[in-house]
């Protein structure tokens, strides 16, 4: 985590005015909420709609929160990496580091009534929706206290009370589900929207276009977000898509291309999209982002791209670094404060890992629970028909 690339001018800005900011991370950061306007580095590109303004309204508190949340997510993913290598996490583990700006930017623009559904790269989205670190780690390690009671695993995080609908393993299958969520919102007149996240790989699925057609036809408040990290597992976008302008693929559905490594741009785009979807139906957001890890833990991530490319993006476009520079240049925090914050976060994550390691595995009766709702009094036997037996409630 030695992200030591700092802009040179930050050191001299240790002023008493900022001492109010020197607060431990646990206390709600009581910074200024007065608005700051920041220009996004990259302009938006639009298709069949107007681009939102490049000037983003934000505040010190918000930018600091971005930093904290993204640092926490980054730390969590790195901890998951070590746990996987220690064989405490098994199966598939798809890490989101590099893409954190998407999760935090989106959360800043929406409420918990708006729904989010995503694919299997869902750890950070879960945290963004208010999920707890210890629940995430417990689920990853298959413990009873995990967010899905250990029965889902890395690809199946859900949080119903925060309108987070998961966590889906089959590429693209969440897109019709997401349009169904939007349909329910329209049916119930919720005045809320659904963000349906999918990747550049899933953008070639037929069900995306089926769902887009229905969403546009029925005016559903669905926002389809293509997290374009440029690689569908090992296949680059230029090798898998005839038209890699994913925001234009909707044809009759308007689209917007956003710099996905800039949390503020993401926030602006999501805000714009929500307003659009509530009035005019679906819109596609293509988030130009990047993942540092391979597709999953079993993919080194370097056979189809060069290490130079990865480190290049890390140097130039890293979302956390970008926010760090913002914080330092606007005197919202000092370098030391941010370092302390990162240390706190590291401790927080380590504590969560330790707590999760201690938690119990599900017992054998859990094998049959939650198969059906009110499992109708059916008896269920294990393979040997003698020992493992349970009566479903």
């Amino acid at each position, binding site marked *: 985590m030695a992200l030591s690339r700092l802009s040179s001018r930050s050191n001299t800005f240790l002023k008493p005015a900022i001492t109010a900011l020197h607060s431990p991370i646990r206390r709600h950061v009581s910074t200024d909420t007065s608005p700051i306007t920041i220009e996004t580095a990259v302009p938006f590109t639009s298709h069949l709609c107007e681009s939102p303004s490049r000037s983003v309204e934000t505040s010190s508190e918000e930018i600091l929160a971005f930093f904290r949340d993204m640092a926490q997510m980054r730390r969590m993913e790195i901890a998951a990496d070590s746990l996987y290598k220690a064989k405490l996490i098994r199966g598939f583990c798809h890490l989101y580091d590099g893409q954190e700006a998407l999760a935090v930017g989106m959360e800043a623009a929406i409420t918990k009534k708006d*729904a989010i*559904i995503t694919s299997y790269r869902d750890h950070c989205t879960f945290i963004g929706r208010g999920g707890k670190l210890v629940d995430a780690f417990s689920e990853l390690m298959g413990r009873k206290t*995990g*967010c*899905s*009671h*250990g*029965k*889902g*695993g890395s690809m*199946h995080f*859900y*949080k*119903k009370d925060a309108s987070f*609908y*998961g*966590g*889906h*393993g*089959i590429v693209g*299958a969440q*897109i*019709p*589900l*997401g*349009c*169904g*969520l939007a*349909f*329910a*919102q*329209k*049916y*119930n*007149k919720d005045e809320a929207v659904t963000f349906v996240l999918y990747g550049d790989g899933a953008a070639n699925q*037929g*069900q995306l276009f*089926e*769902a887009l*057609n*229905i969403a546009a*036809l*029925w005016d559903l408040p669905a926002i389809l977000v293509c997290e374009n990290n440029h690689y569908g597992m090992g296949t680059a976008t230029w090798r898998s898509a005839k038209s890699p302008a994913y925001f234009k693929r909707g044809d009759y559905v308007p689209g917007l291309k956003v710099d996905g490594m800039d949390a503020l741009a993401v926030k602006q785009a999501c805000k714009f999209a929500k307003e659009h979807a509530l009035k005019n139906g679906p819109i596609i957001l293509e988030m130009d982002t990047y993942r540092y890890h391979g597709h999953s833990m079993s993919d080194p991530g370097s056979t189809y791209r060069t290490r130079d490319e990865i480190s290049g993006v890390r140097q130039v476009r890293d979302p956390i670094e970008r926010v760090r520079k913002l914080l330092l240049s606007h005197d919202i925090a000092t370098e030391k404060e941010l370092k302390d914050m990162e240390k706190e976060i590291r401790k927080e994550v380590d504590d969560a890992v330790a707590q999760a390691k201690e938690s119990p595995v599900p017992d054998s009766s859990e094998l049959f*629970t*939650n*198969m*059906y*709702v*009110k499992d*109708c*009094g*059916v*008896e269920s*036997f294990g393979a040997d*028909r*003698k020992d493992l*037996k349970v*009566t479903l409630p």
Partner: protein
Amino acid sequence: MSSIIHGAGAATALSTFNPVDSKKLTNLSVRSQRYIVAGSEASKKKSFGSALTVRHSQKLIPNAVATKEADTSTSTGHELLLFEALQEGLEEEMDRDANVCVMGEDVGHYGGSYKVTKGLADKFGDLRVLDTPICENAFTGMAIGAAMTGLRPVIEGMNMGFLLLAFNQISNNCGMLHYTSGGQFTIPVVIRGPGGVGRQLGAEHSQRLESYFQSIPGIQMVACSTPYNAKGLMKAAIRSENPVILFEHVLLYNLKEKIPDEDYICNLEEAEMVRPGEHITILTYSRMRYHVMQAAKTLVNKGYDPEVIDIRSLKPFDLHTIGNSVKKTHRVLIVEECMRTGGIGASLTAAINENFHDYLDAPVMCLSSQDVPTPYAGTLEEWTVVQPAQIVTAVEQLCQ
């Protein structure tokens, strides 16, 4: 356009399995209690079969059909066709709960390709009876997503065979989401549609999907065969919190029967005793029930007394009713429309052999359709499915 939701209260009040449900049911309440008895006693017993002995002292409730007909003195009932019964069930449930909506191809303005949803779009509006484009995968997925939030969609596959395109959504999302989310989400969808071999519809339109769906964990499957159980099962399926696949048959839509006026539902996990008997148990479902009853007439003339059970519940099997029957007759013949390989009959044969082996005097025989794509030519199509004459021969063979 009645899209107003009455709130969570409406949803929680729906309970198929509540024995104190005030709906007028002929034999439901006793039956459902039996399952709970099985659970507590059986912990001391090794096999399912021996657990049944505890309950054997209870009197077997006579067949549902007979009891219903005896009821005609109390209420007049009304006569209708099977597709009208389905429509009535659907309409009543949509009236009862504003969360119920219908999605499918041509279900709205066209009225449904088999008229099951006729008139509903005019009554409930476009938001509750939705004409979808031709994209089974997407609209099945959409219905499942909507169900995750609390809506209760009824998905119609214009022909069950088309739902193969939605297999991913049905298997991975519909069946598994309740489990993989640790119980957070329920998927109260009903997936229904006509299947089975029709009159020369061709191979692709004559499929029996129950054999493909049967191993999906987390779903329930039922097959209706009469107007009475069609309406009852439709209502029970809509009220169930679990995803239910309701299999209808293309050739049974015009069956006529008198059904009660009052509100009733059929238990989703229960088999129906069509004709009690002593010599042999014939297990069947859907259209084959009628072939079996036709064969039964011939058999009775020949001096046999077959017990015919319409299993209705394809997943899970009603092993209680089936077991009691096997213990009485000691011979089993399964007559089904699925293919020989991997069909419902194959699973049922395995289940009976495993659980009731001691009670069998002869091997379980299973008559299924041939393992061929259904041909177009009428004569060939006839030979694909089981005919009454074959049933008679099989019974004679088993009862030797």
